[in-house]
């Protein structure tokens, strides 16, 4: 009897390793494939020769990306919007979450309800669009970063963190010493809350960097476009305008598949920032999800 149990468990453990290894390969393969494609020649790409490693390796596609002006305009805009939007959103979230975390805030329940309700009901696409338009924000950076800057979910996560990590005694001690709420918030709460600041900043930054719908409906001049909008044109709509870029016309004539090659390298170049930082920041993501999962 006992022996049977042990063998069954061993089989289950074995299949578990097989299962997870398969998962690993399934997730990795498309990523490796795209990287390999970006280093392959146009001929190899178009005839579907790339299976795993680069075929007829070349750096042509990266050269084309570096000379494609629109991508770098988008890059610059995305960086600006992401940095400013993240600062704004994190600041607003912390300012909302701290008072709401205080047990002695009168009317806290009402304010909290005000935030919670927005998680369940919203005005919808058109009313929001018309509002942004009436405020004169269309085709400005603010249309991209302001509307979503206060998210009820983030406020709840930050509030839960404050409740769990800022001891009541600390506040009382500070009050005895005549410390005001502002000062307590700035010089004690914030320094003690760096993990949650990191979590929020990452969530917001990744969201802003990757989103395309809002920029698409609010931005209409090309010099304000975000990277994702440029990518949408190049990758999904195949609207590559090589003649308006700085790429040498002779090279375009020489390589008829250049616009196809450009797509792969663009994917790599645009995803690189997040791919490079995520191994270092993923633990904060995990932490944030865990704080968020606590019933608040």
């Amino acid at each position, binding site marked *: 009897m006992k022996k049977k149990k042990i063998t069954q468990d061993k089989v289950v453990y074995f299949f578990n390793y097989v299962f997870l290894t398969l998962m690993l390969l399934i997730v990795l393969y498309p990523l490796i494939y795209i990287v390999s494609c970006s280093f392959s020649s146009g001929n190899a790409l178009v005839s579907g020769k790339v299976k795993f490693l680069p075929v007829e390796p070349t750096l042509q596609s990266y050269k084309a990306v570096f000379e494609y002006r629109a991508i770098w305009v988008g890059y610059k805009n995305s960086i600006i919007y992401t940095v400013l939007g993240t600062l704004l959103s994190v600041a607003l979230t912390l300012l909302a979450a701290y008072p709401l975390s205080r047990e002695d805030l009168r009317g806290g329940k009402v304010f909290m309800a005000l935030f919670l309700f927005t998680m369940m009901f919203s005005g919808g696409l058109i009313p929001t669009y018309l509002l942004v338009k009436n405020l004169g924000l269309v085709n400005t950076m603010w249309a991209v970063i*302001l509307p979503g800057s206060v998210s009820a979910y983030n406020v709840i996560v930050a509030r839960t963190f404050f409740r769990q990590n800022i001891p009541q005694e600390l506040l009382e001690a500070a009050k005895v010493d005549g410390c005001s709420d502002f000062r307590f918030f700035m010089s004690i709460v914030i320094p003690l809350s760096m993990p949650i600041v990191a979590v929020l900043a990452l969530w917001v930054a990744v969201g802003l960097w990757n989103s395309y719908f809002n920029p698409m409906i609010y931005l209409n001049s090309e010099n304000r476009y975000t990277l994702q909008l440029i990518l949408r044109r190049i990758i999904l709509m195949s609207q590559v305008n090589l003649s308006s870029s700085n790429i040498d016309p002779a090279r375009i004539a020489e390589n008829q598949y250049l616009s196809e090659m450009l797509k792969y390298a663009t994917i790599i170049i645009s995803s690189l920032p997040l791919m490079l930082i995520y191994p270092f920041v993923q633990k904060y993501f995990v932490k944030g999800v865990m704080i968020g999962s606590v019933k608040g």
Partner: protein
Amino acid sequence: MKEKDRRSKKQWKTYLKGHWQLYAMLVAPLIVLVVFSYAPMYGIILAFKKYQVSLGIWKSPWAENHGLNNFIRFFNNYNFKECLRNTLVLSIYSLLVSMPCAILLALGLNYVGNYRFKKTVQMVTYCPYFISTIVFVGIINMMFDNRMGVLGSFLHNKFGINVLGSPEIFPSLYVWTGVWQGVGFGAIIYIAALAGVDMQQHEAAIIDGATLLQRIRYVDIPAILPTAIIMLILNMGSVLNIGYEKVLAMQNQNNMAVSEVITTYSYKVSLVSTFPDYGYSTAIGLFQSLVGLVLILVTNKIADKVTGDGFI
């Protein structure tokens, strides 16, 4: 009475003297919340109006049929049934697949002894979550292209399947690529729940001669059930709201019959159309919001009744 009034007023005054700074902190976020979340709710009356740009929201005349014309038009439109069906197919299919997959991955990771291997699997499976929708859909299109793509050309040459061109495949393509992108991240919350399981329960079960599968069934599953239910409730609210990002990006002429969902339809009749119909689109949005609200409340109620795990 007056005495009491005065005293409570005085109490408030002393309270505010000590706490006004807390309210001051709330001012900026509340302004943003009111302007960008509550002010648009005023615009909802557009759903009951025949919107004319020159007249503005308030002065536009009410819609026919006691203001309900926009809704009647939507429900009677031949697109309505199709959009509703597509929306439900995609979101329910994806809900049914992605949750069990995330739970399965979490359970699998929970029983890996090798720390290094476990961390590697986790890190690699999170990775796709950081890829943007546009890039992700681009990768799908490239891999499944039936001439150039590595999977697409294989399926096309061996089985004659045109993945991107066949509407029947679209829902599965949408859902399973979604699993590819989200399973690692979706598993985090269940890994956290599993980490909270009391080891003594496992030890007791082992002494009682339980196999690994039995321990998973009787110790782990009940432990992650409350989390799963909360996730279900949260997801229920957005059953009708899929589409702004990924579906829209995945749409092409071939799959339109199965990929047109309510959100993409309402976007197209308003912001894309040469004759934008804002009232109509707002009505569709309101319909979605209300259904979402009802679904959240109903699932929450049921969950509360059945397991006591409701959260609102």
